[in-house]
């Protein structure tokens, strides 16, 4: 029952996010825009390129969607509204999200196209940059909660949200999450101006619709993870818990989309250099600071 409810909530969330995306990119608020886009995509022919690796070509977009959904399974919207409250929730989220890379490599390799393949391998480079910045801030979050359970992590922030307790970790995680969702300015695997859509380039019709849907679910999931780890999850006055979660998740997703509108696309080499030379030392510093805070002010 909870699972069905969560999938319904996710579907609504994805639709609202698509409306937001359309609003931010076109500057016009149009509630029916995603529906029209979906109808247009589903109505078009889904072209299969010449000599594809058909298995990869078909599995790539589906795997993207499944992975994003699996990761969403451990995001709590309220104390009871969670698909599965795993004892290793925070780690499970990482495990599921690691397969975004596999999905993109498969989708890049499958169509037998140069741009798509470059896009897929680019994301591997991108993962080398952001992966540590996802895991290390989560470590500091788990340290404070003394648990990997996502519900425990939210409960640990009842007094003070992690965004105030460990702001450095929040900034790093937020950047890494945007990198993971390949949102602009980190849209290297699908960069339109450079590699003509990259991984998305050879997909059309229903397969492209699944790819885009997977991407939207991924953004919602990552916004959910940010809210769970740093913005106090369902905590908040007056409104019911699930509503607080929904408002925060959509807010974070909107900020993620808005940033991409104003920041130019980063270069792969710069991303790697900055993440490893600045990001990882800062993430270690964050773990150290949180450790000291936990010992000094338990």
């Amino acid at each position, binding site marked *: 029952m909870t699972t069905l409810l969560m999938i319904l909530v996710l579907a609504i969330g994805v639709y609202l996010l698509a409306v937001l995306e359309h609003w931010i990119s076109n500057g016009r608020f149009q509630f029916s825009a995603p529906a029209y886009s979906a109808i247009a995509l589903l109505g078009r022919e889904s072209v299969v390129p010449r*000599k594809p*690796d058909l*298995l*990869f070509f078909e599995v790539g977009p589906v795997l993207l969607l499944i992975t994003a959904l699996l990761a969403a399974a451990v995001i709590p919207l309220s104390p009871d509204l969670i698909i599965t409250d*795993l*004892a*290793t929730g925070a*780690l*499970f989220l*990482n*495990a599921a999200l*690691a*397969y975004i*890379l*596999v999905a993109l*490599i*498969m989708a890049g*390799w499958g169509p*037998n196209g140069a741009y798509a393949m470059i896009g897929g*391998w680019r994301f*591997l480079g991108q*993962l*080398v940059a952001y*992966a540590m910045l996802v895991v290390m801030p989560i470590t500091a979050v788990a340290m404070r909660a003394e*648990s*990997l*359970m996502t519900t425990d992590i939210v409960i640990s922030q009842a007094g003070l949200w992690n965004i105030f307790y460990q702001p450095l970790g929040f900034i790093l995680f937020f950047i890494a999450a945007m990198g993971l969702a390949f949102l602009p300015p980190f849209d290297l695997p699908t960069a339109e101006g450079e590699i003509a859509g990259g991984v998305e380039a050879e997909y059309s019709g229903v397969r492209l619709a699944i790819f885009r849907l997977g991407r939207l679910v991924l953004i919602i999931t990552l916004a959910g993870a940010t809210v769970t780890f740093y913005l106090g999850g369902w905590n908040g006055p007056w409104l019911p818990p699930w509503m607080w979660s929904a408002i925060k998740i959509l807010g974070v997703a909107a900020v993620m989309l808005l940033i991409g509108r104003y920041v130019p696309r980063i270069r792969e*080499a710069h991303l790697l250099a900055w993440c490893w030379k600045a990001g990882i030392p800062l993430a270690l510093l964050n773990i150290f600071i949180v450790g000291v805070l936990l010992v000094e002010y338990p």
Partner: protein
Amino acid sequence: MITGQAIFIGFFGLATVWFGIVVFRTFSMVRSAIALLFSQTALGAMFLTMQAEFLGVLQIMMMATEMSVMAIFMVMFMMDPGGMGEMDMSHQKRLSLIAGFVSFVGAVAVAVFIDWGPVTITVVDTAKQTEALGLELLGRSMLIFETAGITILTAMIAATAVAIKPVPLTVNNSTTGDLPVGDFPVDSLPTNSLPAQKEDKAK
């Protein structure tokens, strides 16, 4: 008695073996790497079925990245990465057959003849498992794991050092710290580091 757990362990076990076989049955390097990944993922799922949640999730997480990195290395080094030329890259078939058979017999012998001690009937709580694992890693097994970590780090640094194109420290007779690294036009190199060019100039 066959329980649901046993059925799932069997299923994921077969999946592990099947994907392992697929690794060698395909000509495509990327398919091969991804098949190995799913073999390892199925192994992680076996851990999950045996209620070793932390180990299972960790296995599933680590393998995704590692096998993907392996895939790009295989694409870089192999002559026919897509397998579209159907180039046979197998060799030393008799040796591999013997080695594979001996390892298989060895593994089965270990599984059958070792005294595994009493079978645990009840599984401790996952949080307790994770805690016990942490205490083990920072206690008795610390030296082993730290040594392994340092070894991997050393190998990574060594591999990077080997892969970087050597760049002379002096450019245009000035010692500068910020030298270009990676791909850059040959012209930007000092002429004395390129024997071929030097010869041209001598002419």
